[in-house]
């Protein structure tokens, strides 16, 4: 059962788990590895031994920045970022989402639904509020307001309503795909 899910996840990502021979070059160069509870090589190891659960419950898939350093240097061209992305979708469906990421991403998309563009102050402010990090980066705010680097009033696209609908269509179709 688990392996069927794993196989389909790997197929979607275009990753063959046995291509990996566990050299660790991915982990060695990963900018976020330090904070990951399962290192990139460990993700491949779990894929090899069929432990999908550990992958989905790891913070790794949420911390991956998609910088592609791992696959760039991988001797066997294993597309870990693609695997991480597919794992995120599956984890979301199964309710394993990392709280901080969930908050940020939902605030971000809510932002887009409202304005079609990203309102930086609102994004950071809302995120900090919901994630209980009220002071994060707040020291920079006065400077930014003074020099017009952030504004109170958001820039709206003219058709932000159409973008909102579009995002909703994409959300609907995405939930169908898995």
């Amino acid at each position: 059962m688990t392996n069927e899910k794993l196989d389909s996840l790997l197929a979607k990502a275009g990753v063959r788990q046995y291509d990996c021979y566990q050299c660790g070059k991915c982990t060695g160069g990963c900018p976020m590895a330090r904070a990951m509870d399962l290192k990139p090589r460990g993700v491949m190891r779990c894929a090899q031994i069929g432990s999908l659960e550990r992958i989905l419950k790891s913070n790794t898939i949420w911390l991956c920045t998609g910088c592609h350093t791992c696959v760039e240097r991988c001797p066997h061209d294993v597309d870990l970022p693609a695997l991480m992305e597919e794992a995120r979708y599956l984890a979301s469906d199964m309710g394993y989402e990392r709280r901080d990421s969930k908050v940020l991403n939902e605030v971000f998309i809510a932002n887009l639904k409202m304005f079609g563009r990203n309102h930086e102050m609102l994004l950071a402010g809302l995120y900090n509020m919901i994630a209980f990090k009220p002071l994060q980066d707040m020291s920079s705010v006065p400077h930014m307001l003074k020099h017009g680097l952030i504004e109170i009033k958001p820039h709206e696209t003219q058709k932000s309503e159409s973008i909102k609908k579009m995002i909703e269509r994409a959300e609907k179709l995405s939930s169908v795909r898995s």
Partner: protein
Amino acid sequence: MESTAKSYRLATEYVMSRIGVELVEIEDWNCCGATSAHTLSELMGIALPARSLATAELKEPELDIVTGCASCYARLRLAMHKIRTDKAAKYLIENVIDMPYEARREVYNFLDVLSREDVTEAIKGKIKRKLEGLKVACYYGCLNVRPALITGAPDRENPQSMDAIIALTGAETVDWAFKTECCGAAHQNDAASVTRDLSWRILKNAQLSGAEVIVTACPMCNLNLEMRQDGYRKNTGRSSIPVFSVSELLAVAMGASARHIALDAHHVPAAKALAAALRRSEGGVAI
């Protein structure tokens, strides 16, 4: 590039008008969704950039697309690539964005445009004063060069295009090791402590390699490297290092004043390094 990237925007407009390149803003463009959209849904991550591209194709069918942001570049280019190579995805995306999109034109990043032979020649002709001896570390970031399949960048570890552009200003680019190391900007909100360390080690390597300033080609990289330098000074005991966009140095070398490019909007005091370089140059001009 309207808010936090104010200097980048002003300088880019300045440079482009000087060399006679007209930039047309895509009408009613929307955010590409950055990391959040494709984290939530693959389809949304492609549909958002595809909508802007489709609008451009509709309104300005003869124009290529250029973006000054590495993350937008990666997302836009991926959307272009997907439309060109995946028929099923194309059908789905066109349905979601409710517009046709054929991906006829190319998506470039700002460095690609500046590196074009005719543009380089035009820049050369407009350089008025040299940033003599200013030691610059060119920071490319990840998504301007990776993944290779999407960007087609020839060298992902030690790229040279920005170095060649900066050399036109008379500044001296340093050989350093973190040109394409990820700064973690995508997680500057939700994993701030890790991202902070990532940007710090980039700053440190630039300084140890002799750089006085860092130059970027992306507002996200720029913000992430620049915004948290108070902590950098306190924790490492090092001095802070100004971070500019590639356009700003070009603009200054073309004669732009501090006001032209909102030089005082920088988080890290930036005028001093430029002023020193301009003083060193022939005739000793002021910013």
